[in-house]
């Protein structure tokens, strides 16, 4: 625990130091970066130390004046989330040194590093807080510091808009969390998480109310399906390492909240689980369908985060459903898959965002259709991006496969052991999950194919250069972790099974999952596969010397240029036409060629988020129209405001005192 405090102190202290050294951009950058790196390293060390120590540890300072207790509690669940937080903080801090150096003006370093370190520290505090009010304080610091990181490039109108959307969304979510914690504290008589065990005895309606509040509140941060609208705007707006940190671990704190809530409440009825997995699978399908239509590389990755969060929620939902219908073995499988996917997504999405950042850094554009030919110009970055794409497509021997395999296994088992509508449901979920898998493959083969292969489509892409080693190393480390988890899943399963034991008490099956025969053989098969791939690649390299370089065959056209190549939009079109319903297909506007000697014709495609434009925008506009009548209260006169305060105080005083 002490080491963890050292890490937090390093992060917070370094942040303030960076702010204090704001007059010199070089010094503040050094202070911010090294404190971020040191905080990350010490934090990881603390995690290892706490895992060794085993038992959960608590720490509390009451602060009666403020009415809260600064209570911290590190248990298996908190540790499970702490480890990726510190790992990604470390990776992103190293990455940012060269990334920021090139992209921005001086003077902003101080703010950036201050908020970066604050975000890292507040995320760690969120997962170890053990008091409702303290949790909310940490949660709010996390939301605000990430808002300032998203709006780093605030001179840009689009970035400011994305920032506001994020700020509004996160605060709407926080309102529900306030209600949740106030209700909990009202029922238990204390804000301390220790007292929340009393929630187990609540009547079911109250349990479901609390469940709903927490699902909305935490779901907004996590990017759960209809509440994900802020995510696809915020990630492209933020600097890439911030996107990696936010998508990799910050949105996972929402999932942490839901997990923590599940440990307090009484076991949910089956339909509670059904709500979660329905939202999860819809989110996964919707997210990946949108991701396949985006031509902005980071927007595509952001929608893919919605998809992965959907898969995680699918796992959680299936697990809750299964334990409610009395199938603990299936519950354990699905929950193991969901928990593993949390780590896996943090690793490969972190890697992909950092990789996308390097590509953007080299080509100065986020537009996929302007990149191209980058694998030859940036071989290491390109290979790392390909590796990350393989992992996110859940292909062996990388880690994405392991977690999705567990979820599939849970669903298939459910189809086997149950009958009737439940079996049908399970099989339908399998089909949908497979459809999601197919679309992921299209999305990422498109990303790799368009951005990395072919010929460059803009002069910047043609003159792209390999990224600096400080940008490559963090990506390589994340890639190594992906490979390690894919090859030796048993390594992480021990930790995961402890968490699953905490979440599904009484089943005691979690430990058995890690030792099952299929898993160890899977590791062996994955290793074998890796050896085969490596051998093939080596053979290709040996033969590559004999390959002649010739221009691309242009079907007999004499003037072949890059505008004739497949675009990002064109690549995904077939799949979108044949697989997706009309409402999810991108809007296409065509000005076709007319007449015998046609002039320039054009085609534009735009994939907009329907939930945002059809649901949230009209909703908020409606509310704003109603709320405008309250504007009369805003007189602009000091006297009137003082009168308001006076009346409110007098009323509150009367309310508190007179019933006595």
């Amino acid at each position: 625990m002490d080491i963890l405090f050292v890490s937090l102190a390093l992060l917070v202290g370094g942040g303030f130091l960076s702010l204090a050294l704001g007059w010199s951009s070089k010094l503040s950058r050094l202070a911010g970066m090294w404190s971020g790196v040191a905080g990350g390293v010490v934090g990881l060390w603390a995690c290892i130390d706490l895992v060794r120590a085993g038992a959960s540890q608590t720490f509390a300072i009451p602060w009666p004046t403020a009415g809260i207790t600064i209570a911290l509690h590190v248990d298996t669940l908190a540790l499970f989330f702490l480890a990726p937080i510190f790992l990604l903080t470390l990776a992103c801090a190293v990455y940012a040194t060269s990334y920021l150096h090139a992209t921005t003006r001086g003077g902003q370093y101080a703010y950036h590093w201050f908020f970066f370190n604050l975000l890292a520290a507040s995320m760690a505090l969120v997962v170890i807080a053990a008091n409702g009010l303290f949790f909310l304080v940490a949660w709010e610091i996390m939301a605000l510091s990430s808002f300032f990181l998203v709006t780093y490039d605030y001179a840009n109108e689009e970035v400011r808009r994305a920032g506001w959307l994020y700020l509004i969304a996160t605060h709407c979510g926080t309102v529900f969390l306030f209600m949740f914690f106030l209700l909990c504290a009202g029922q238990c008589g204390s804000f301390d998480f220790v007292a929340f065990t009393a929630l187990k005895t609540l009547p079911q309606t109250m349990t479901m109310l609390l469940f709903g509040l927490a699902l909305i509140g935490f779901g907004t941060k996590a990017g759960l399906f209809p509440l994900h609208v802020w995510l696809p705007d915020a990630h492209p707006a933020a600097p890439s390492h911030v996107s990696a940190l936010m998508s990799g671990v910050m949105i996972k704190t929402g999932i942490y909240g839901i997990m923590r809530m599940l440990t307090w409440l009484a076991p949910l009825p089956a339909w509670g689980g059904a709500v979660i997995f329905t939202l999860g699978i819809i989110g996964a399908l919707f997210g990946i369908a949108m991701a396949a239509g985006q031509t902005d590389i980071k927007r595509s990755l952001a929608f893919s985060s919605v998809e992965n969060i959907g898969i995680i929620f699918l796992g959680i939902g299936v697990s809750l459903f299964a334990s409610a219908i009395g199938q603990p073995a299936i519950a354990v499988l699905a929950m193991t898959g969901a928990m593993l996917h949390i780590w896996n997504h943090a690793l490969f999405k972190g890697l992909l965002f950092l990789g996308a950042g390097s590509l953007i850094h080299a080509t100065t554009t986020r537009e996929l259709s302007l990149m191209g030919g980058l694998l030859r110009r940036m071989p290491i970055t390109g290979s790392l991006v390909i590796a990350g794409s393989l992992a996110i497509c859940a292909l062996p021997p990388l880690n994405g496969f392991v977690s999705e395999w567990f979820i599939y296994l849970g669903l298939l088992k459910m189809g086997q052991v149950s009958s009737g509508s439940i079996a049908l449901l399970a099989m339908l979920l399998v089909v949908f999950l497979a459809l999601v898998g197919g679309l992921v493959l299209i999305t990422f083969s498109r990303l790799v194919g368009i951005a990395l292969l072919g010929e460059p489509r803009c002069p910047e892409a043609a003159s792209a250069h390999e990224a600096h080693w400080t940008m490559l190393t963090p990506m390589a480390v994340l890639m190594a972790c992906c490979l390690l988890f894919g090859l030796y899943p048993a390594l992480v399963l021990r930790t995961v099974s402890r968490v699953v034991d905490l979440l599904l008490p009484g089943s005691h099956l979690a430990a058995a999952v890690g030792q099952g025969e299929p898993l160890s053989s899977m590791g062996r098969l994955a290793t074998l596969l890796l050896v085969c791939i490596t051998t093939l690649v080596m053979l290709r390299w040996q033969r590559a010397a004999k390959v002649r370089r010739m221009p691309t065959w242009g079907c007999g056209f004499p003037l072949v240029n890059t505008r004739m190549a497949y675009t990002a939009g064109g690549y995904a079109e077939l799949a979108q036409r044949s697989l997706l319903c009309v409402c999810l297909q991108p809007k296409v506007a065509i000005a076709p060629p007319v007449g015998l000697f046609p002039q320039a014709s054009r085609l534009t495609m735009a994939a907009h988020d329907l939930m945002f434009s059809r649901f949230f925008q009209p909703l908020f506009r409606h509310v704003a129209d109603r709320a405008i009548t309250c504007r009369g209260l805003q007189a602009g006169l000091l006297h009137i405001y003082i009168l308001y305060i006076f009346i409110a105080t007098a009323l509150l005083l009367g309310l508190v005192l007179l019933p006595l």
Partner: protein
Amino acid sequence: MDFQAIINGILLFVLLLNLFILGTSRLGTCIKMVSLQGALLALLPVLMHGTPYHALILSASALLLKGALIPWLLFRAIREVRIRREITPRIGFIATLLLGALTTAAAFIFSGQLPLLPEHQHSLIIPGSLATLCAGALLLITRSTAITQVLGYLMFENGIFIFGMLFIKAMPLMIEAGVLLDMLVAIFVMGIVMNHINREFSSINTEQLSQLKE
């Protein structure tokens, strides 16, 4: 006790001063009356709790600040902005006076309902403090020049000061000292703000300061 009668006498006088301040339009007189009120109230700690050092310190500092320093600052301020009278109150003087009388009566009724300790049951401290608070708030709400706003805050502080007499043994000196210091700083700031408003708009009427409401 003799002192009890003196304390009640002082508080009665303070209540009368409240009404007087609400009814007058001359700024100079207002400042004098508020500082007189502050100076009288500064006697309370010693009268109520004898002469332990911390009642003495409190009395002395309150007398110095409210009886001398703050009035001096305020007089300097009105000399610089050359303003003598409150000309356009939002609610007329007579109406304010009546409201003041009403709130005073309400304060007495309200404190009659409170579950007080027996030794505070018949003292004027609670109703006096509530009435002064209300009078301060009325001054803040109804007047438009910045200087009467300052006076409103001062009366507000006087009300809190009276209330604080009940807890003087429990309340650390630090808190009272903090409140007094806050007041002094607030008056300084208000003085500077007033000068700036005056220079910018050639008036210290705060009603004109509503352009920033968006």
